[in-house]
């Protein structure tokens, strides 16, 4: 393991043997961070996907707005639990869903309300802490998830999602969230008159 070659950011010389205790401290530090990133990732994603799948549209005891859209797109039996998804995001959080960007907690909440109901199955999870020098003093990690998602009984599709979460106070919040379905993007058709 060439970790002895790891240099502290900014330092230009290798640490001498006498400095190895420092080095080990640093490494321990790094390991601690990495472990923490892993733990956080596991917990966070568990909560997140549970909310996305189950708690976006809840059925209360009394059925309020029974509203069938013209085309039976979806029968909304109740207004979704309002504050749920936006809790996970920073006020300035950004959600990019298949290339559609949504900025801000409120807009993101709206987005989730409009999104048809989903069912996610996680296949893989990976997480890394982000260097201190990048986000001064705020604990941040970046998480990558892959798996399968099924929207409203459509066919199950593979998806990839990456989050950057940061500690705000004692809570982890999403700074940015990027979701992509694993499929080709069709090019726009040029109209025959424009060719």
């Amino acid at each position: 393991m060439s970790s002895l070659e790891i240099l502290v950011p900014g330092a230009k010389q290798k640490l001498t043997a006498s400095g190895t205790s420092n080095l080990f401290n640093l490494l321990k530090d790094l390991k601690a961070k990495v472990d923490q990133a892993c733990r956080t990732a596991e917990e966070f994603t568990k909560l997140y996907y549970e909310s996305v799948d189950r708690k976006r549209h809840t059925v209360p005891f009394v059925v309020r707005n029974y509203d069938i859209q013209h085309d039976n797109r979806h029968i909304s039996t109740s207004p979704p639990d309002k504050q749920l998804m936006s809790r996970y995001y920073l006020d300035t959080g950004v959600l990019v869903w298949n290339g559609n960007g949504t900025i801000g907690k409120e807009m993101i909440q709206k987005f989730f309300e409009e999104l048809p109901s989903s069912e996610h199955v996680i296949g893989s999870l990976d997480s890394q802490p982000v260097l201190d020098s990048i986000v001064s003093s705020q604990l941040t990690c970046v998480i990558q998830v892959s798996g399968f998602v099924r929207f409203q009984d459509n066919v199950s599709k593979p998806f990839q999602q990456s989050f950057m979460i940061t500690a705000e106070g004692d809570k982890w919040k999403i700074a940015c969230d990027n979701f992509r379905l694993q499929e080709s993007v069709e090019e726009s058709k040029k109209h025959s008159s424009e060719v």
Partner: protein
Amino acid sequence: MRMHTVLKGLVLRFNLFSCAEDLRQSGRRRDELNSSRTARADEVEILEWVAHRPPPSLCIRHCPESLSLLMNAALSPLLPQDTADQGTSSSLSSEVRLAGAVSLFFSPIQTTSWLIHNEYWNRVLSRLVNCQLETQHYSIPDLKVITVKVEAPFLRMILFSADKEIDPETRKASGRHSGVWQVNPKPQTIANPIGSINLDVPEVPSNPAPGHIMLDQTNAHQVIAGGSYSSFMVLMSKNDYWHKFIYQQEGNNTFFLARNCSGAIEKLCYSMLLVADPQGELITLQIVLGFTPVNSVKLNMQDNFSKTLQRRFEPLNRSLDLSEFHSDPQLAKIVYCPLSQPKTLYYILALAKKALSNILELNLSHNDIEDIKSLDLFSNSPLRILDLRYNQISDIDQLTSLQRVALVSLWLDRNPVCAKYGSENSYVNEIRIRIKTVKNVDGVVIGPIGFRRNHRNYMVRPSQNELVNDFIQHYFSLYDGDIRKKMQGLYHRDALYSLTATYLPGQTTSSTARLQEYMTESRNLRKLSDYTKSYNLLQHGQDRILEALCKLPPTQHDVYSFTVDVPFQSDNVLLINICGVFREMKATQTQPVRAFNRTFILLRMGEGEYQVTNEMVHISNATTEQNTKTFLHPLTSIPSVPTIASTADRVLTESEKAQMTQMFSQITEMNYQWSRKCLAEAYWDVKDGLITFVELYKLRRIPPEAFSKDEDSNKS
């Protein structure tokens, strides 16, 4: 002779004077009018009066001498003395244009109309005017009662005369005036009809369906405007119901013939036969009612239309091009046929449907169309592609006419309705509700219902696309290149790298689908039991990362398959996520295609210099769909990513920059210099600049001097 200033009296006099036997004999009328004088006595009286006054010099023709004189005389009290000049009309809103004096007086006192006529005019009018007398009722097809607003205390007179000559210049010059109605007593033949059109007039069906333009009116009206205004034609077609079919220029006047246009005529009545042209100038119109019976105008419209439609139909892809139909060169010579007229549109579409088989694609662009109800004709037809761009559709509910048309592709751009929707999502949803089958809107494939369309790229700061482009190009060309070791410099000293790999379910475990090299390196936290192993799989620092990268097989990426998202970007850091496919360049025959998802965090090290601090990769096999739709373009080397377009293309002038800086400084309360700096770094994208400012402000990274108020000295 007493001056009969009371209108009723005037009317009465004329009535009595007229040669109509029935009126004269209608003692009832006289009684009503409460006059004991005989008609003859009145006549004599008026003639005497007239003899002593010079008539205003107006053109008089084709009428009984006495009657016209009388008309003159009768009107003269209403005309101020000083407007007895040649050809000038009065400053009143009435217009005198005499000859065959048949007039309708609409009195402000009485609402019934009175007719003066002689035998001849009686017949004429009976075909045209719907008015009621106590004993006589004339019902005229197609032309409703003309109820014209009367400006008290003046009369509005609508005269019918046989005189067609009117010099529009003099009329215009004289100020307020109205147009003139004329009734043509004799059927006219059109001098020199266009070309040699000599075909039969189509049959008139007994029950014309509503909306069909049928030649069922035996009279054509001539509408004349001074000069030649082709734009005038466009105006006339807008809210009216003209169906013009001959357009001709005669001397200084342009005229056209129209029929089935009672609505339009009535409208014109209200506007005093004045129409404003696009430049805002008023055009005076003249209308000759009953110019000619339609039968005498030999024109076969249907045939002409059919020919035009044939010409515009492309049998290979079964597409019919009706864009700018009204300016079709062959057709415009004969008839002005704007598709913005619902009736016209219906007619043409019905004709097209009948004459042409199985239209698949229909182009109705550039027609100023507002109303597309006629498209209902294509319900349950093979029509799949519809182009409605550059029209005037302002109500999304117009699309309900298409609900039974199984459209796949709809072009609705450049219609007022588009501006009503702020977000693409709501626009598409509204269309989708009404046309269930649509898959393509304005050339873009829309996602399934409830989903946003799949965009290729997203950048939270669109102006920074060059940076991202450069990075991607650099990274992937090195990665695909011979010596991956060269990538060392891309990574930060303390960079972290990890890889995960999963199989898609249902994939055969053929040799090509094995992700062996990746699986050994896969740091899937869900599968790893303890953190030690996962720690070991996390590569830290340049050397270890490069070691890991070099272990992986050589690749060739398909740049055209990349989707790039940059959901986070600050001054120094950005997060890039790329999804796409690559081919493993194995020595074996098959080169399996893998799908990847890479997340990079880049840190700015200096001016224009960035390094990767975090990288996470996910590898799986490409889906069947990806396999077919990627690697379609021949690749020799990694080109610059063609897909991220620059939005910050505009070159701003200095004054524009100054303005933007000023505004920015006002919003942020920073001084001019710092505002400018901030804006410049955001490539003059104000939104970006503001986002940056807010971020920096939150992180307390803006020094207090940025807010010092010595603007003047710092202004550049």
